């Protein structure tokens, strides 16, 4: 790989500037480059090269100094927030933001876990890869119950864009004809194991409104020519994705959008470039570029472009916008509505139930499937049948107890060793993923005095679950336990974790929302700022509600659609 596309200072006026290189930034870069725009991708973190910089990949457990664990002093001083994430370990920690260097502020009694990946590729290297379409149940939700503003688009507006991005990404899954979870053209689904097949049968016989399907995920189970052309290889079922994948088997910026964008010859990249603010020209009412702080030298410089796409992650983008003040926009660029920073949401996780499945000791599996099973939303679908608004899905899977589980059993000696070697009992769980209501009170703002080491004002994050959110989490646990009991599981354990603050589901959304009315929203239905026509926001900040499905696929579809619209408008001379 040559490095000529990496730039430092530049006086060039690019056709487009994309801030952030994660899932949406990668997509924006690819789409804009492929449409012929000279595009500059600005990334606050370091360069991460596909394969070469996956330093934790393929390292054997016994080759790691602490077998995957990390020195306590390092965790305490540098990763006290990031370590809450399930995938954080010695082989992945370099893809997480260092909490000491990237401080933020929360009120004493309202914790918020901000999990960040500040490097080229962003959190596309770390994501969980679950990929589900939303339906009109979701796009209608705000209009129906009056929470949040009405989405300025519907499923039909996104349908073809979903297909477009899915084709390129490669989504493994099965066609199911479930109205609340529209289908696509999928790569082959991963297989159910023997116990999962049995439990699926029992659940679907017992509950006619519920289906247990194979999780749809951005993994190449059977690569197409569009994937192999980028050097992407079939998934090897290691399920160690967050270490980086040299097979390029899961979708990331590095494996997919970045090589596609580079192929055009139109892409330039500036890394270690922390965007301080968007430059705004009040004479033309246009964004003209971005001011950046060099992460290493602390020097400031400017980049110029005709279009500006903010894809810096929900809170990253919002921080930049709030910090972009001018006479016209004293509280942040494109914030004439005053809603910028408000309506922060995250998914409701950390509640569900698990149980033991007796028998099946002769059944096992080979490989580590990088997805689980999925039970799409079934509450409040055809009628309101719960004491809360909106709904949730369940994730789950059946597996045998591992050596880690079995090591807690009583016993010592040859017998203990044999117990562990023989593999344990089967267990199965259902874990909720619920929709959090958009609420004005859940908000981020710039801290009046605290700054980070680059001089950027720290974010002050104030977010907590509402009564509706709490009721839904309780219901997830109750309902999961009820299902497990009804299909004959034993030793059922029901849980609602109180150590799951907002943010930890890493689906933060909504702080620069789309809407029909410029008085109550920041962006229109094309992710275009109502106030500044050449400014687009296509990451999670743009979401008017959060639905119950994982959001990344919808971000991708929105980004591709916004790029198409922006380039049309640019060519028409309208922006």
């Amino acid at each position: 790989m040559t490095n000529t596309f990496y730039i430092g200072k530049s006086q060039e006026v690019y056709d487009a500037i994309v801030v952030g290189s994660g899932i949406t930034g990668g997509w924006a870069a690819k789409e804009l480059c492929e449409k012929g725009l000279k595009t500059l991708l600005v990334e606050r973190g370091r360069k991460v090269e596909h394969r070469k910089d996956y330093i934790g990949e393929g390292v054997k457990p016994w080759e790691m100094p602490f077998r995957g664990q990390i020195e306590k002093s390092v965790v305490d001083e540098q990763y006290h927030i990031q370590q809450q994430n399930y995938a954080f370990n010695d082989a992945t920690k370099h893809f997480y933001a260092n909490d000491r260097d990237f401080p933020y502020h929360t009120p004493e009694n309202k914790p918020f876990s901000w999990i960040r990946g500040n490097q080229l590729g962003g959190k596309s290297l770390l994501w969980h890869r679950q990929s589900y379409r939303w339906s009109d149940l979701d796009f209608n939700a705000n209009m129906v119950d009056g929470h949040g503003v009405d989405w300025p688009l519907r499923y039909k507006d996104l349908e073809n864009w979903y297909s477009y991005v899915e084709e390129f990404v490669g989504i493994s899954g099965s066609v199911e004809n479930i109205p609340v979870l529209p289908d696509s053209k999928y790569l082959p689904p991963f297989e159910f194991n023997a116990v999962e097949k049995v439990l699926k049968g029992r659940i679907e016989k017992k509950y006619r409104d519920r289906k247990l399907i194979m999780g749809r995920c951005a993994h190449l189970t059977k690569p197409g020519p569009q994937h192999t052309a980028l050097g992407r290889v079939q998934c090897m079922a290691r399920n160690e994705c967050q270490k980086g994948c040299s097979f390029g088997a899961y979708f990331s910026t590095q494996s997919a959008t970045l090589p596609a964008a580079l192929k055009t010859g139109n892409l330039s990249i500036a890394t270690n470039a922390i965007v301080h603010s968007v430059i705004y020209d009040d004479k033309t009412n246009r964004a003209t570029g971005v001011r950046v702080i060099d992460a290493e030298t602390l020097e400031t410089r400017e980049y110029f472009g005709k279009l500006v796409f903010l894809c810096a992650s929900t809170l990253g983008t919002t921080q930049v916008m709030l910090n972009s003040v001018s006479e016209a926009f004293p509280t942040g660029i494109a914030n004439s509505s005053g809603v910028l920073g408000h309506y922060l949401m995250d998914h409701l996780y950390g509640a569900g139930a698990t149980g033991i499945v007796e028998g099946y000791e002769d059944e096992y599996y080979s490989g580590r499937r990088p997805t689980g099973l999925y039970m799409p939303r079934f509450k409040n679908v055809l009628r309101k049948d719960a004491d809360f608004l909106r709904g949730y899905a369940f994730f789950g899977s059946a597996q045998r107890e591992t050596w880690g589980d079995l090591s807690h059993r009583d016993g010592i000696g040859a017998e203990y060793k044999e117990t562990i070697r023989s593999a344990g009992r089967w267990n199965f769980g259902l874990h909720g993923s619920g929709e959090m209501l958009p609420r004005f009170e859940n908000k981020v703002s710039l801290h009046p005095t605290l700054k980070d080491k680059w001089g950027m004002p720290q974010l002050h994050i104030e977010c907590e679950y509402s009564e509706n959110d709490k009721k839904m989490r309780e219901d997830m646990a109750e309902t999961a336990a009820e299902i497990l009991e009804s299909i004959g599981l034993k030793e059922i354990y029901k849980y609602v974790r109180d150590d799951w603050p907002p943010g930890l589901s890493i689906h933060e959304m909504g702080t620069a929302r789309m809407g029909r009315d410029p008085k109550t929203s920041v962006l229109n239905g094309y992710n275009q700022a109502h106030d500044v026509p050449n400014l687009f926001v296509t990451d999670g900040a743009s979401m008017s509600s959060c639905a119950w499905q994982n959001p990344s696929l919808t971000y991708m579809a929105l980004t591709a659609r916004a790029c198409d619209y922006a380039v049309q408008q640019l060519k028409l001379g309208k922006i």
Partner: protein
Amino acid sequence: MNKQTVSPLASGIDRRTAIKQLALACGLALSARSLSLLADSFSIPTDVSRRSQTALNPQQLALVRQLGEIIIPTTDTPGAIAAGVHDFINHQLAYCYSEDERIQILDCLARIQSVAQTRHERDFLACEAEQQISLLRDMEAARNEFDASDRQAFKQFKALVALGYYTSEIGASQELAYAPVPGGYRPIKFSEIGKAWALN
């Protein structure tokens, strides 16, 4: 994916060759450059520079060594001593444990010694094998001299032994089934592999 490709990297064959076989098994024509990039990404040196400190004195280390072997003995595969579990624990306690957690483990060791002295008037390591085993079984069962907090302490120590053993090369690849690159996911009969997987 045929069965041959289940764990090509497990046998210690040249990694580049393994990657090439994998690519072929998947029907992929990778360029020489892609292959070498893939192979390079699989050769990471062991980093032991991060663990120069230790937590145990020679007596404690000797005790941990023996306790590990009692908990996970040599059978048809090597046990905890051969897997170096005591050395692992010596570093792990120094680096990955809080002061409180470290003291708990050291107290657990002291408790074992003190009961050995009361019962048999000698050091635990000087006790007969049956005496050692019965002491530990009592401790785990919280009976005789031991109470619930002793049981808890022993459980924690045992989990640390298990971590050290099953993440060691011996524990992962000899005692259990080790497949760093499984090649795909499929249901199988337990008898096809005959033992539990090391990586889950």
